[in-house]
């Protein structure tokens, strides 16, 4: 049986055709950087970050709306930590907060239920961003709010789905030879969602968890399965072939699919989820937020997000754009390609 020493030696010594592999999950971007995995690979293996960081792909119009809502009397915006520093075209939630906006950070969206029940005169608006891993959780939240007759909560959604985005990347003639598929998205969707894309574009997918060994195994798999349409599930403790039925049912009940606007990319059909009309009362105005003002013309986030450029190729990287003074979303988010490059791999 193979052991990991042999696998790491293989990857370090790989000397065949250069290969470019994309991961589409911000948590993978961060894990690869934190494990220093690039230093373990031959120069002929290129790891590219795709648009898998929900903070990075949220358009400026969404942030603007969120900040505006937070500054209105009677509102409190509730959010994960990730969203606090991102700039829209005017400001960030952090800046709005220091101007008097009511903003509360939470670990779990369900915390909003108690807040809303205890303070019926305040409207609590959750910054509902995420991919397939998190969307069912928002649906479950609404299910509970309705059951408990809690009416003073709303969601401002920026919910995106992987398959359409993956197809779009493949259709752009990008030189990607394979995908490291997102582990926790796959927990919800099942590994079945990648088959159609794998077959259409003849590209392999390896579903991986988030520790070093899982990701190394995925890279090894994709090299061995080069030029095939295989979908290999390496994260078998958590991922099955089929979707989580309860999650799928909840999404179907509360959300409808439509075009979504991806920061730095533009509109992708059937890549977003929006609350159904009958749940309008729980929506804070999520539809039609597609304006994406590029604050800094030289910012290359859009091309970095689809793997056409690496952070080093951006003229602002490490000079005008750094974590303490970010110009684009890829540097703001701690899972952005630029932030992780700057923090862990600059040298």
């Amino acid at each position: 049986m193979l052991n990991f020493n042999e696998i790491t030696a293989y990857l370090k010594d790989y000397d065949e055709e250069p290969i470019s592999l994309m991961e589409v999950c911000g948590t993978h971007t961060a894990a690869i950087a934190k494990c220093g995995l690039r230093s373990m690979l031959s120069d002929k293996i290129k790891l590219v970050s795709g648009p898998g960081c929900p903070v990075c792909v949220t358009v400026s119009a969404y942030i603007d709306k969120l900040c505006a809502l937070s500054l209105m009397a009677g509102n409190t915006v509730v959010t994960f930590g990730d969203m606090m520093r991102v700039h829209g075209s005017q400001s960030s939630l952090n800046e709005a907060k220091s101007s008097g906006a009511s903003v509360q950070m939470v670990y779990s969206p369900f915390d909003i239920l108690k807040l809303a029940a205890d303070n019926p005169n305040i409207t609590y608006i959750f910054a509902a961003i995420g991919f397939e891993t998190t969307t069912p959780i928002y649906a479950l939240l609404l299910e509970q709010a309705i059951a408990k007759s809690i009416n003073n909560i709303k969601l401002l959604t920026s919910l995106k789905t992987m398959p359409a985005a993956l197809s779009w990347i493949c259709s752009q003639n990008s030189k990607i030879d394979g995908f490291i598929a997102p582990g926790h998205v796959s927990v919800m969707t099942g590994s079945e969602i990648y088959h159609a894309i794998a077959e259409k574009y003849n590209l392999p997918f390896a579903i991986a968890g988030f520790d070093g060994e899982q990701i190394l195994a995925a890279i090894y798999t994709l090299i061995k399965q080069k030029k095939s349409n295989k979908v290999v599930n390496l994260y078998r403790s958590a991922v099955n072939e089929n979707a989580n039925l309860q999650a799928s049912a909840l999404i179907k009940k509360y959300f409808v699919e439509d075009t979504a606007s991806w920061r730095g990319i533009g509109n992708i059909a059937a890549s977003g989820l929006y609350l159904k009309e009958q749940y309008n009362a729980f929506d804070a105005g999520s539809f039609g937020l597609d304006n994406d003002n590029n604050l800094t013309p030289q910012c290359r986030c859009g091309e970095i997000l689809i793997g056409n450029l690496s952070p080093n190729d951006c003229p602002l990287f490490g000079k005008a754009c750094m974590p303490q003074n970010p110009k684009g979303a890829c540097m703001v988010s701690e899972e952005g390609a630029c932030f992780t490059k700057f923090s862990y791999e600059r040298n």
Partner: protein
Amino acid sequence: MCVAVPGKVLSINGTKAIVDFCGNKIEAEAGLVQIKIGDSVLVHAGCIIQVLSDFDRDMLLDILTEMENA
């Protein structure tokens, strides 16, 4: 995009469960999967998203070895 960690179900109370993460006891929602006490589960954003099955390093290496031999 999906920070999620494994823990063990200590107790269940309706749609909620107390999950132990090496001594940190956290209440999580349990509305997406069927769980029982003692299950090893994955928790994301305060919600249990999967019951974990046994799959260790050797099993992973088995898959890779099979691929090598194919």
